[in-house]
């Protein structure tokens, strides 16, 4: 029970050019330890904001977020976040990118080398240690981004549409890779996506958010349908053909669509 996330009455506002924007309003939710939670919702509904708040990058003016019972007050490696792009340091090699987090957290040099080797093996990029990010494909870059966070053994992993910039094939590969990598440590995952298929494939539960200001519209339990051995461990192409998968997909898409229909 140590890596559960608790959202209590969370609100967030931004000052925009044309007045204040209410991104989140009275957001209440509980995420279970080691759960893979996916959030979907229309653009601008505040899902990204929610992630940034969970990472401790801002502090909500009212309400609070608790990780394992303790309030989140500042960012740190226990609440790792992976963005869609621009995460990696372009001037550092793959090796040095992963080394960065270990080094600033005081891990001694020899142990750092071991950890880097281990995690590079985990993501399958042996031989690329001395490459610069620009020399890697999008999928490979995201692997490094995940590795950089993963090597610090985060309690929760926050992912902001991490595969949205990849083409369809690489996206599929990365989804399966993410599952494999995640299984080795099982942090609590908060995953944002616009792709309903991706959501249904990966999630234990899916939250559908309302349009701005964001609130929980509905929670869908995928795990109970996905089976004893969750279908995310199976190849995507097989899973996507299942009738129960498609039912879930339609249902969730209908919910999201109803939030989009009126305004943009």
């Amino acid at each position, binding site marked *: 029970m140590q890596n559960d996330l608790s959202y209590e009455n969370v609100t967030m506002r931004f000052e925009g050019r044309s007045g204040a924007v209410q991104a989140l309003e009275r957001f209440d939710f509980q995420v279970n330890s080691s759960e893979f939670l996916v959030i979907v919702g229309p653009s601008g509904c505040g899902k990204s904001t929610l992630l*940034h708040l969970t*990472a*401790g*990058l801002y502090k909500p003016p009212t309400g609070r977020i608790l990780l394992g019972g303790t309030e989140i007050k500042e*960012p*740190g*490696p226990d*609440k*790792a*976040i*992976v*963005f*869609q*792009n*621009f*995460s*990696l*340091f*372009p*001037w*550092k090699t793959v090796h040095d990118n992963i080394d*960065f*987090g270990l080094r*600033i*957290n005081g891990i001694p040099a020899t142990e750092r080398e071991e950890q880097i080797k281990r995690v590079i093996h985990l993501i399958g990029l042996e031989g690329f240690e001395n490459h*610069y*990010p*620009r*020399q890697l494909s999008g999928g490979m870059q995201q692997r490094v*981004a995940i590795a*950089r*966070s993963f090597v*610090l053994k985060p309690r929760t992993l926050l992912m902001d549409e991490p595969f949205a910039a990849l083409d369809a094939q690489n996206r599929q590969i990365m989804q399966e890779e993410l599952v494999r990598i995640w299984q080795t440590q099982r942090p609590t995952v908060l995953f944002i996506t616009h792709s309903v298929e991706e959501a249904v494939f990966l999630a234990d539960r899916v939250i559908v958010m309302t349009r701005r200001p964001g609130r929980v519209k509905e929670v869908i339990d995928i795990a109970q349908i996905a089976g004893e051995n969750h279908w995310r461990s199976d190849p995507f192409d097989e899973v996507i053909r299942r009738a129960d998968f498609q039912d879930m997909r339609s249902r969730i898409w209908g919910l999201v669509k109803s939030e989009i229909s009126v305004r943009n």
Partner: protein
Amino acid sequence: MNGAARNNGLARALLGAISVGSVLAAWWLVTSLELVKPLILPPPVDVWTGFLDIWHGYLNVPFWNHFLASISVMLGGYAMAIAVGVPLGIFMAWNRVADWVFGPLLQILRPIPPPAWIPLAILWFGIGYAGKIFIVFVAAAVPCILNSYLAIKQTPPELLNSARSLGAKPHTLLFEVAIPSGLPTIMTGLRIALGIAWASIVAAELVVSLAGFGFLIMNGYRNLESNIVFVGMAAVALLGLLMNVLFVHIERALLPWREDQDNG
């Protein structure tokens, strides 16, 4: 396609050569037919003798002294501009109080063109080197400050947030993330500042000087020696070009991870 490309390259080089060649030929023709006074356009022969003259010691001052005078003063002012301008720009971008305090001052001083400072510099420092170093400093500092400011301000937020999430403190964020990220833009600022510094020292020397290329040009003008003026201008252009090429090479060596390098 390759053959066509090669033909294109050949045609291009040919036309270029013909173009420059015809200008040179016209120059020779017009002057040997004495269609214009040598004052308006010095004949190539005169230019050559003028060059030899300067090389061996125009007015009993060896060429090296002029070269040293211009270059050393320029480098002095340039180095000061970098030493003051880059840290200031970075500081203003990182710390909003610094921005509030120095920003308006910069906005007021910036529209004053570098040449406008020359008489004031003479008033304050006399006609010696100190005044010229001051002028180069004032001229070159502006692009240094501006570009360093932009470099830091334009740091991708995901880069900073990723680092924060890995546990980086503000000190690390500035020195290990923002500054390396902004280095390309800062280098561009330095390159622009170099060009401005060179033009400024020449301008200052045209107004008042005892040595240097501006002095050579101005002296040639006063003695109605258009060939000397010509050589002076050509030397200034050539040195400007060489410095720029040198800088680009240094830039490339310092930033091996840039996208626009044709690397692996």
